[in-house]
């Protein structure tokens, strides 16, 4: 059976050759082998294109800048990336006409930390074996592990294996496994804690924040020309955490700004160097939106109104917060 990277290269090559697109956005080797980096390739550079279990990065945000340029670009989008892509199209941030979307197969992406957590030390490189198995070359010899045991958080709760935007697909035909985990389980667990326990939990998590802004920079919804936190005129500008409240404020506002627009792509948590589970903030908003205003998946289409730019006269009152689960 043909590997997906070969299908991608073949299709990309053809599209470049016939002039449909003049460049391709995908991934190339990064600093470390487990850290492939989004990159743009022109014809003739395709041999550097990489796609494997570590290509978790979502390239859709790069299309904002890319579609400002001349010509058409081929975007390699995993199913979850297509949601971000749609949301960006909806918000007029990406020019749909300048993108050729190749929806690519995804079997879930690996988290290097989870491989390390399995006790595998001195990792040098990893090879993918058929049957969703990973062959790990270490300085102590080769080890194997199951991809399913080392999935990224966002893949554990994969929202869909369907491409919601695509001009063509690159699939091997093998079924893509569905998500094994309920994505709101942790949110629900937190909700059932006492406020003091929740406060302690978040204090513990958020106080680790070093305000590196990685979450913001990677987030496809955080695509403002200038972030309010960088804008002196906004009155909330701050680059560093000067006190215990700053990171609360930053993360609440950031989550609020993307509420109703966040597709739950999970990039914020993936890139956080402090391993703060930032997706739990976004998922709280998503869970509330679903419960209060009906199921809504940002990026499922490019036309519907987001829940925060919409209303019904019979919406729940804010006092519902007083009546919900968890002790007070």
């Amino acid at each position, binding site marked *: 059976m043909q590997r997906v990277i070969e299908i991608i290269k073949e299709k990309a090559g053809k599209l470049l050759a016939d002039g449909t697109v003049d460049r391709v956005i995908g991934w190339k080797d990064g600093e470390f082998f487990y850290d492939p980096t989004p990159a743009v390739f022109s014809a003739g550079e395709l041999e550097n294109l990489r796609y494997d279990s570590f290509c978790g990065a979502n390239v859709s945000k790069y299309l904002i800048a890319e579609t400002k340029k001349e010509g058409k670009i081929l975007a390699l989008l995993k199913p979850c990336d297509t949601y971000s892509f749609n949301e960006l199209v909806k918000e*007029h941030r990406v020019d749909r006409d300048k993108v050729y979307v190749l929806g690519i197969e995804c079997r879930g992406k690996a988290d290097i930390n989870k491989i390390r957590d399995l006790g595998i030390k001195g990792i040098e490189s990893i090879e993918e074996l058929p049957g969703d198995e990973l062959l790990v070359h270490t300085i102590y010899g080769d080890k194997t592990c199951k991809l399913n045991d080392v999935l990224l958080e966002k893949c554990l709760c994969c929202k869909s294996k369907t491409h919601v935007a695509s001009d063509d697909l690159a699939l091997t035909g093998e079924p893509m496994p569905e998500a094994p985990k309920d994505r709101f389980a942790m949110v629900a667990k937190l909700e059932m804690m006492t406020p003091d326990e929740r406060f302690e939990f978040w204090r513990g998590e958020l106080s680790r924040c070093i305000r590196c802004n990685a979450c913001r920079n990677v987030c496809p919804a955080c695509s*403002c*020309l*200038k972030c*309010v936190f960088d*804008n002196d005129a906004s009155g909330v500008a701050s680059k560093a955490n000067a006190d215990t409240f700053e990171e609360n404020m930053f993360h609440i506002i950031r989550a609020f*700004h993307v509420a109703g627009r966040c597709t739950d792509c999970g990039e914020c948590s993936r890139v956080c160097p402090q391993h703060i589970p930032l997706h739990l903030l976004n998922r709280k908003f998503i869970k509330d939106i679903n419960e209060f205003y009906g199921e809504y998946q940002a990026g499922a289409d490019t036309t519907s109104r*987001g829940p*925060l730019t*919409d209303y019904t006269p019979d919406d729940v009152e804010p006092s519902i917060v007083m009546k919900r689960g968890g002790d007070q």
Partner: protein
Amino acid sequence: MSSLHKIGVFVCWCGSNIAATVDVAAVAEAMRAEPNVVYATDYQYMCSEGGQSRIREAIKEYGLTGVVICSCSPRMHEATFRKAAQSAGLNPYMVEIANIREHCSWIHKDRMDATAKAIVLARTALAKLNLNQPLTAGESNVVKRALVIGGGIAGIQSALDIAEAGYEVDIVEKTPTIGGRMAQLDKTFPTLDCAACILTPKMVDAAQNEKITLYTYSEMESVSGFVGNFTAKIRKKARHVNEDLCTGCGLCQEKCPSRKAKNEFNMGLNTRTAIYIPFAQAIPNVPVIDTEQCIHFKTGKCGLCQMNCSAKAIDFEQQDEIIERQYGAIVVATGFRPISLERFDEFGYSQNPDVVTSLEFERIMNAAGPTKGQLVRPSDGKHPHCIVFVQCVGSRDTSGCGKPYCSKICCMYTAKHAMLVREKYPDVEVHVFYIDVRTPGKNFDEFYRRAVEQYDVDYIKGMVGKVSSHGDKLQVQGSDLIADKQIIIDADMVVLAAAIEPDPEVRKIATMLTASIDTNNFLTEAHPKLRPVESPTAGVFLSGVCQGPKDIPETVAQASAAAAKVIGLLAKDKLKRNPCVAHSDEMLCNGCSACEKVCPYGAISYMDKEFRVPGPKRTEIRRIAVVNEAVCQGCGACTVTCPSGAMDLKGFSTKQIMAEVDAICR
């Protein structure tokens, strides 16, 4: 920026209203110590000429760049102080009010607490003022044409007055004729003129006035725009009769074989044909085909009307027409209807045809009504010998079945009915159950007393508990509170003074106009006492019962008052706009369209604009939001939905509100 400010603070005593609880001198002293404050004083009445001249003098003497006034609510005197500042050469939007009366001295008793709070409020106003920008109100044109929604006496009077002043007026009436409720009435209190005799000439005037255009059998489709520049779409429903050709001969009506429809004009007491003119004096005197009843529309057969019409006016193919027009002002005169009595089983209204509402009774007494003015029972056509009137049916009712308010007109029309019955039929015994008889109005109480003293109407202080059928009689059980007795009257007819409610259409229209409406569906005034004929939405005026229960004289007075307001507006060539509008910082705007989605006025549009950027390309095209300042009303919904903070509101900017928060939490 803020360090360049020179601010004056003026603390008002409001006589003892503020000074009794707030140490005004201490407030002035505390403010004197604040940065940027170069002058602070207190004075007995800041709003008086003396107070205002102090402001003007201080602005000149100290070269003030801004003024904080600690006084009553800005809703009261903000405009006064802005004017005073402007006359001394200061931008009127460089004035901020600290509300130390309604929000402080009047609600706090402890002098220390109140003074401390007054100082905080003054500092808050100062913090905001430090960030104020001088604002200039833009101007917009005024379309010299008015729209009146509703063609009852209120709408007709407003339209006539506006036309009299020389402006074009359109009346939109949903029924096939103008005239409204008044056209259904028999006599009018307290003078007992016949309603038709005084109304129909006005209807004719409206029809013949060249400045007035009537759109009957028409409904409002949509309204957009703003004061001076509304755009309305009116749906002129298909009458299926060509208005230009029809001569109003009425032959079609005579020939129509479909005769089962309830006659709305007679409150369903008799029937009418499918093609019909609601009543003899209807304007326009052109019939309408009720397509639900018409045999041609139901089966494709018949067509008798068409065959008999020598003017060839019947047009089965006629379609609804949408008329789009610009207006400078809109008068709402949508009127009322009696409430449904479904929830008042105790009076047996639904079970017994001889229990009628007052409006039905009005039709029975009317010479042009279903009984030709003969007082007979609807059930058997017999002459009644005893009639019981019940007042306050569904009015002043907080149980949820009726309306909590007093319907205002029932006491008088019940007295009128009682009197008319007794005059025409002295053999009929008349009893009136009342809770209170409310007769404020010129010659009103005299009128009611005449019913009692001259016409011997039996007024019983008490309420009816139950009406039940006993043979061909109605047994009315009620209390007589003066005698402390429960009494039973065997009556032939019972007349219920049902509460009135605004026409339900008004809610739809209020939404179109963004005019506020209260829990009872009455339109809200801009000020209950001082601006009673204006809606809080600029350019929308209120006429008649849509604003609150009222009788004909009051309705006409309000209609003329609304017309005067409209004339005042249309007489202007330009209108000053509210400068507190949204604006978007194009350097921050992402063009994401979130603001457009939440804007209730459609004031935001987008454009592609070329921007300089670093790099080899030098420029790039970006999509940015643009606010139409003439349409924006300054709610600020866009400012919060904008993630980048590009959208801000002049006069209530993010920085200003943050500064207020900081000042309060200092």
